[in-house]
């Protein structure tokens, strides 16, 4: 595995912005598709299990970690997750401004914290996993606020499910996806692509 060489450059170039935006757009479409696919299973999970529907959250969490690990700039996770949520909102879904945009911003903040605590110098599988998990925590926080009537058991299960889902889809899958993208050579203008080439 490649360990990013830590020479942090915090300034955003235009290419960083546009690539983060396009990742957000692609993710936003998947968010929206997942909204539709998920409507029925989500309702089923909510009825049959005590909060296991958190496991379905991962597909709404990955935009932030993916953009951050590719672009490697402060705020990339928040920017991408917010933009993806905005696209999801304009395409039309069941949650409106609250459940798309607000939750997107909270998830983005969660994903952002993972990289921020390492001063944006660590871009490895560990921080990606942490980022995915914290995005899951963000999602949980919003849904708890939406359903404050849940009992402790359900709140706990939802949190656990959301974190697991974030770890797997917004963590492991995102990390290997970013490596696979780097291997195609398309990231040659980014440090994330060059670190791979040097090995």
């Amino acid at each position, binding site marked *: 595995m490649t360990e990013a060489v830590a020479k942090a450059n915090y300034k*955003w*170039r*235009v*290419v960083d*912005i*546009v*690539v*983060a*935006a*396009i*990742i*957000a*757009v*692609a993710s936003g479409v998947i968010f929206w598709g997942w*909204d*539709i696919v998920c*409507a029925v299973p*989500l*309702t089923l999970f*909510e*009825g049959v*299990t*005590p*909060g296991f*529907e958190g496991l379905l959250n991962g597909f709404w969490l990955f935009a932030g970690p993916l953009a951050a690990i*590719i672009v490697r700039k402060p705020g990339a996770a928040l*920017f991408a997750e917010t*933009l993806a949520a*905005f*696209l999801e*909102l*304009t395409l*039309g*879904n*069941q*949650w*409106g*401004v*609250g*459940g*798309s*945009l*607000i939750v997107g911003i909270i998830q983005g903040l969660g994903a952002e914290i993972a990289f921020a605590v390492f001063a944006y110098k660590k871009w490895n599988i560990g921080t990606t996993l942490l980022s995915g998990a914290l995005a899951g925590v963000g999602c949980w926080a919003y849904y708890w*606020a*939406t*359903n*404050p*009537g*849940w*009992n*402790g*058991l*359900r709140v706990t299960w939802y949190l656990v499910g959301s974190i697991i889902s974030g770890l797997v889809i917004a963590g492991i899958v995102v990390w290997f*996806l970013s490596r*696979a*993208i780097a291997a*195609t050579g*398309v*990231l040659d*203008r980014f440090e994330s692509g060059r670190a791979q080439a040097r090995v």
Partner: protein
Amino acid sequence: MSEPVQITVQTNETDSAVSGKTETATISDYVTVSPQDSRVEPFKPASPSWFVARINPVSRIIGALLLCIPMFFSLDLVSASSALAIEFVLLWIGGVAPWTVCRKTWPVWIAALGSFISVFLYARVSGEILWSAGWIVISEGSFPLALATAIRVAAIAVPGVILALGLDPTDLADGLVEILHFSPRFVYGGLAGLRMFTLLQDDWRALGLSQRSRGLGDGNAIMRALSQAFGLLVLSIRRATKLATAMEARGFGSDAPRSQARVSSLHAIDWVFYAICLSIPFAALALAIATGNWHFAFQGA
């Protein structure tokens, strides 16, 4: 469609007249354009409501936040249902009939149903326990709590969904930069990404066709979709990189001050809209407090 109009490039003719050469005009001397009135550009209303269509896109986002944030603090039947009722009436006045609202927001009702079931079966215990099996605990307070949660979900989501309908990202971007003074680099960079969305749809089709023409992807449909999605992601990053270079070549992202092509500003109608958006949740909360039904959302049952 009427006949295309040919526009002769004037400078070339005078050039050849001066030089005295008998040049036959090459293809590039003619720009073929269709007359303006024959272009079919589908008219997209900015909103199903005449009122919402007239306000600034930024106000629509802010208004939706004003509408839903106060509602998070209460969890009771009175505030949730009165807010929802007021929203329906106001939307009707604003030109969106209740049945249209229901049709446009059908997924909201599925989400509300999900919330209802989850709270009904797994609510905080209040009063006597009526039935329990495994993890499921239904107590006396479960039903009202579940109903309140479901209506609250709808009351929060319905206006947000309706306000977002037909929202134009370009107008919103102008508003974000000119009214809220967001960084134009990020807003227009993000907008550039959003505008590539339609391109991605074409790319998806082209990728599918090219896989087909190579005889690939006849097997597992999920594997094909995944591999095609990866191809699309790589292609879109490549496009984005190229777009960024093109934008920089035109001076985007420099420190020089920007001028705006379109003016985005707030008018009296926006302030009226803010007032309405604030008054709905507060009227609902006030009604709940006045009737003694108000319940703080994050307190024990």
